[in-house]
């Protein structure tokens, strides 16, 4: 199939950018979206043009490195999918596809479709951990954990930190990301001692980074490749307000 792509091009953080139109031909439906961009880039390189920069690594939906807003939707319209897992059979011949980077002030564009997500790392630094130096741990069976708690903690812990939640949120809020970690650690007995300080510190950092506030629109969960539930945000709020539950 033949497609028209409108892609955000921006040389670096300091310069302004624009949407640029490209045509790609003979796209196979078996290609992934990124493979389609690879084909475009191969051609751009041979033409001596700058290839479109985009982040990616594992290409199997787990590292969280990829992330494009495709036709206005973070990671494209397939549910529970990362951009790298999106396949071209979702599109039809003649489609016009807009491709934009994550848009949020705390995620400044580095180049084209590549943004700086280090704000997420700093939110984790603020308290997204359990303080346990290597070598000091008790036997793994010393503290049993209810299966339901372990499973729910796992569900929250599957967050890949891609940032789609921020990209999709009309408020540019990082609540789902932050709440996922607070929920993961807060559900486990190991995470209890630091639970209250963790929530406070992480929320504070989230605000300091310049993310918006949550108004529970649910747009984040809808695009989340791992389907992190909104309930995690309730849990974050409870921990932040110092309530136990």
């Amino acid at each position, binding site marked *: 199939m033949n497609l028209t792509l*409108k892609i*955000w091009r921006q040389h670096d*953080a*300091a*310069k*302004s*950018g*624009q*949407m*640029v*139109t*490209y045509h790609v031909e003979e796209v196979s439906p078996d290609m992934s979206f990124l493979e389609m961009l690879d084909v475009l880039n191969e051609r*751009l390189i041979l033409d001596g*043009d700058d290839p479109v920069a985009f982040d990616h690594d594992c290409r199997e939906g787990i590292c969280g490195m990829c992330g494009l807003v495709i036709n*206005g*939707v973070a990671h494209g319209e397939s549910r529970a999918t990362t951009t790298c897992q999106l396949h071209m059979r979702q599109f039809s011949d003649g489609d016009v596809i*807009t491709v*934009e980077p994550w*848009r949020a*002030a*705390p995620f*400044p564009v580095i180049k084209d479709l590549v943004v*700086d997500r280090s704000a997420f790392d700093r939110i984790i630094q603020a308290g997204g951990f359990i303080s346990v130096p290597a070598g000091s741990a008790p036997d793994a069976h010393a503290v049993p954990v209810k299966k339901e708690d372990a499973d729910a903690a796992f569900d929250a812990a599957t967050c890949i930190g891609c940032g789609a939640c921020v990209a*999709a949120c*009309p*408020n*540019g*809020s990082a*609540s789902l990301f932050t709440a996922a970690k607070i929920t993961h650690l807060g559900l486990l007995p190991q995470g209890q001692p630091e639970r209250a300080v963790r929530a406070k510190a992480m*929320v*504070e950092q*989230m*605000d*300091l*980074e*310049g*993310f*918006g*506030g*949550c*108004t*529970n*629109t*649910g*747009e984040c969960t*809808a*695009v989340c490749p791992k389907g992190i539930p*909104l*309930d995690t*945000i*309730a*849990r*974050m*709020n*409870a*921990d*932040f*307000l110092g*309530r136990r*539950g």
Partner: protein
Amino acid sequence: MTSIIERGAATRPIVPPPARKPGFFGSSTGQKAVMAVTGAVLVLFLAGHMAGNLKTFAGATAFNEYAAWLREVGYPALPKRAVLTLVEVVLVAAVGLHLWSAVALARRAARARPVRYARRRRSQAGGYVVHIMRWGGLTIALFVIYHLLDLTFGVANPAGPAATPYARVVAGFQHWYVTLVYTLAVVMVGLHLRHGLWSAFQTLGLGRHRKALQAGAVLVSAGLVAGFLSVPYAVLIGVVR
């Protein structure tokens, strides 16, 4: 093959985050909590207000007595209008704080997304309601002003400020356009609450049973809408006269 067709906005330069910690009321979660608590106060008021409105069906005397009673609850232990004034103060404060946090959050959101998407897409979460909270809120605010001028002060009422409360109600809602305005506004309140009620629970960290709460929010808001609208429509079709 490669052509530049449209120019977009530049990305804002990176702003370093402020060094000072924001404190509870400066934090997004704190501001949201204020919104939820004040919203809850307003909802409780609405519920009482609606229950009072239903007195209309008991007839003119009962309704007028109820309206008078509102002004002298607690009398003579308390001065006349004491309770009502207290309620009014709480309401004004609630509306004020609610508005403040709405504005604070809206500004925060605008700062967080300085560059908009070129291609905008309808909601992925399937909810249009949540996206009209701010405009809906504004509509409600405007309506409340009109509503006060109409039925509280009577200046905007066909029967005028001198008429009894009951007479004002009947005089107003006989006109289809008055009823229409009230309908639009009340439906807006219902939509606001459909999301707002559940959202308040979530904000206060009580949102563990999301599906049930959301269903509950729909029921309660539908109930409020029905209750509020029953009076104007009863007047319009002549059941109450």
